[in-house]
């Protein structure tokens, strides 16, 4: 894949004046370094498509890169030739040419032909995006919030309602997914480079993501691509492409209330803390019905905490619960009360008795409880 990039990036460094040899060598070394680095494992790359949609885009992508690289290389080579051949020499008196219509028409028409060659697959692709979803497509509504993603599966929830989760989208492999995009506050953008190109999530508008069918089971990186305020860089998410059986098991488990924790266990204490402090904003299916924060049902199965930013280890979950602002630059509701904007998570525990809403023991308990919410 990186070969195409290399062609592209080698182009500008092709030399011009006689002094350019050393420069060209340095440039080659730089490009080699770039290619080497690019060969590392980059989970968010746009160049390893794992869905039909991403593959269609990738084919056009490679085509335009090759076309642009050829044009760029030819023009730079012509330039280098001219610069060497027509450098100042004693006695050379240039002919005073003012123009040549045939030539100028040629180099107007040739680019038009190249652009038409790029326009045709572009237009065909655009027309393809207007196709209706397959009959058996999985419909999902993704909602962008400052700074996390909400995913709603209409009809898959309890009593035929919405099944709701956050920051980790689960979809079955090989089945078309049609995602409707909305935004709660400002503009965000939904992007999973290896599965599908981005489409913006715009408040007061309903957008349709390009429909796609994942071709490989696995975990894929997604990230908000439209600047959306202070924590934009930390608004990430994951997509888990599951087998059909795993997906169905997950849906069933999402709809079942969690088992009650053992009496006297840390988890039981955690549930009490959750009910007192967290339940107004967070939903756990069968436990609470808060709507402002991410849904936490089956939180223990999530790979990440904080909208895709950290591995969901005990230490990270604990720090997130205690002092969310140490991990993510979000405004403090006590300093910035905003009318009409979704509430944000308070800071619960910073070892300051005047401010703390929880004790360290309570933080440990609620962490244990959240991690216990697992698939059965």
């Amino acid at each position, binding site marked *: 894949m990186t070969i195409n*990039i290399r062609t592209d990036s080698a*182009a*500008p*460094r092709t030399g*011009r004046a006689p002094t350019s040899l050393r420069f060209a060598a340095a440039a080659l070394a*730089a490009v080699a370094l*770039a290619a080497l*680095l*690019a060969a*590392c494992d*980059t*989970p*968010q790359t*746009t160049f390893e498509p794992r869905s039909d949609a991403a593959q269609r885009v990738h084919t*056009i*992508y490679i085509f335009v890169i090759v076309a*642009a690289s050829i044009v760029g290389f030819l023009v730079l080579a*012509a*330039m280098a030739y*001219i*610069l060497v051949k*027509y450098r*100042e020499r004693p006695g050379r008196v*240039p*002919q005073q*040419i*003012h*123009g*040549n219509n045939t030539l*100028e028409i040629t180099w107007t028409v040739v*680019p038009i032909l190249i*652009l038409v060659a790029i*326009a045709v697959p572009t*237009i065909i692709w*655009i*027309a393809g995006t207007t196709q209706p979803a397959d009959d058996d497509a999985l419909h999902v509504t993704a909602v962008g919030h*400052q700074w996390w993603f909400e995913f709603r599966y209409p009809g898959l929830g309890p009593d035929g309602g919405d099944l709701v989760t956050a920051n980790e989208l689960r979809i079955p492999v090989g089945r078309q997914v049609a995602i409707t995009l909305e935004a709660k506050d*400002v503009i965000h*953008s939904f*992007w999973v*480079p290896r599965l599908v190109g*981005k*489409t913006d999530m*715009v*408040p007061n*508008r309903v957008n349709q993501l*390009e429909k796609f069918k994942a071709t490989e089971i696995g975990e894929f*990186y997604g*990230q908000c*691509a*439209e600047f*959306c305020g*202070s924590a*934009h*860089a*930390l608004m990430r998410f994951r997509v888990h492409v599951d087998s059909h059986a795993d997906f169905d098991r997950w849906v069933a488990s999402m709809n079942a209330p969690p088992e009650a924790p053992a009496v006297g266990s840390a988890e039981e204490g955690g549930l009490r803390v959750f009910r007192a402090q967290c339940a107004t904003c967070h939903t756990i299916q069968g436990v609470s019905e808060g709507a402002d924060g991410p849904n936490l049902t089956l939180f223990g199965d999530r790979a990440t905490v904080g909208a895709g930013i950290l591995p969901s280890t005990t230490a990270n979950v604990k720090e997130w619960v205690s002092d969310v602002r140490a991990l993510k*630059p979000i405004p403090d509701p006590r300093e*910035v009360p*905003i009318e*009409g904007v979704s509430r944000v998570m308070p800071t619960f525990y910073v070892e300051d008795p005047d401010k703390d809403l929880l004790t360290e023991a309570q933080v440990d308990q609620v962490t244990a409880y959240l991690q216990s919410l697992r698939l059965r």
Partner: protein
Amino acid sequence: MAANIGILRRPVSTAGVWGWITTVDHKRIGILYGVTAFVFFLIGGIEALLMRVQLAQPDSEFVDAGTFNALFTMHGTTMVFMVVMPAGAAFFNFLVPLMIGARDVAFPRLNALSYWLFLFGAILMNFSFFKAAFPDVGWFGYAPLTTTPYTLSSSTDYWVLGLQVMGIGTTAAGFNFVITILNLRAPGMTLMRMPLFTWMTLIVSFLIIFAFPPLTIALTLLLFDRFFGTNFFDTVGAGADPLLWQHLFWIFGHPEVYILILPAMGIVSDILPTFSRKPLFGYTTVVFAGAVIAFLGFGVWAHHMFTTGLGAWATAAFAGATMAIGVPTGVKIFNWLATLWGGSLQFKTPLLFALGFISMFMLGGLSGVMHAAVPVDTQQQDTYFIVAHFHYVLFGGSIFGLTAGIYYWFPKMTGRMLSERLGKVHFWVMLIGFNMAFMPMHVLGVLGMPRRIYTYSADQNWAGLNLFVSVGAFVIAVSILLLIINVLRSVRKGEKAGMNPWAASTLEWAIPSPPPHYNFAVIPTVRSLHPLWDEEANAVEPPPLPAHGEPHMPSPSYWPIVVAFGVTMVCGGLLIWQASTWLGLAVIAVSGFIGMRGVYGWVFEPVAAEEHAEHAEHPERAPAHHA
């Protein structure tokens, strides 16, 4: 004449600081624009370096999120509105009257007003730094992030008001240059004998006149939302469609791209013939290609919005228009290469930078065609690939072109040559640093790195390339240092330039360097596109002054800076009003009075100071008032 008595009498002296403050001389205003733009270039550059330090490694804590967001917002805003535009204006001002054989622009005081509004607007916006309210919403300030619920501090207010003040000056300058070029050309200087740079100035001026109103409207609506609680962009309570902002902004924003690049194209089109020793290949084609680019530039704005859900028809139409704009751009590149073909190429520094412009700008153009292909854009939009693209266009294009112009016309502006040796080192260091900094950004974009992120985690494996990019940014900084050294040394000790050091063909080289304040002792008569090549005699000596002595030039004036101050402080008063209603209203009232008083004084100002007395004696002979 009561408007201009006592201390308000029209000034005479052009000496010292007051001489610069009250100047209406297009050459001095040009130098003011140039120096100011360069200072902001250093500020914007430092902002870039701070960002590159932050991004050099993953999970960096060099700056926090808020600071980083402010840095990229102000870097973009500064480089677009306070560097490349005024640097273009510096060349328009200094060169256009010289190129068309005029003694000044059509409205010299309006010209000074444009400069002061630019300077004060830029200072107003940057003043936010000292109020801990540096704008942090991105340089295109997408609603609803800019509305009150999401930006509680006054940072966005500084951004809106600073842009408005600068926009007034820019719009006035647009009219000034259209009128100058259409009306003040020397006898025989037909439109199709104008140097390419003058042509591009004319086209850019029209672009400014038509592109700035949508920005002004968008900013005014946002200003009303923020100050007076209107609901143009209020999505929470009033159901506004935030795409309204995007349309208005990009209807301005895309022509703006051509406002930034066409002056550099003009500069390069004038430099290539000089150092190839042959005329521009297809002069007419290059002129019309510029005009077509400008025209099409108004029909491609929504390619900034391919991912916003415009719908298939709009997306396809704007993709087609965007590809179409590549054609005249390509034609220009081919015509430049054909100009070099068959020439006798003198590799002086201005030519090197012009060649850097052609090659780097072409790469920016090619990556631009890539995201005109909408499916590709869904993967590239808002990633570092876009950042790479527009830096190839705006740095590899505009900055290389403008730097070529600095090396080319510095001798005309100062009477001294810049060091060729240092100039060549500057060129190679800048070209290498530029490609180190921006070429790997294409790869980062391909690897999925979004723009405008203050941090990234190590597992993304973007660290190595980012470090390399950051090193490149500092190499660019070194090259700028070389330019500063070259300019400071050459201003005092540089080789004397003489009238026409490059044996160039256009009118500005037919007068002494630096030019006298009246430019041409005798207005020349033009007979061809290359007056100094076709009529060698003209190039040797400027004609002597006519018998009646130096031509009469307008006197300096206080009023432009007074009016600009009044306008800016009305906006300053609005900002104070947020904190303290009565103090704000008082500032608005006083500044409004100062501004109005300035306009009154301006209108009734006599053409020259000495005419005060004359009018008193012969009021019926009062001359027509110049603007």
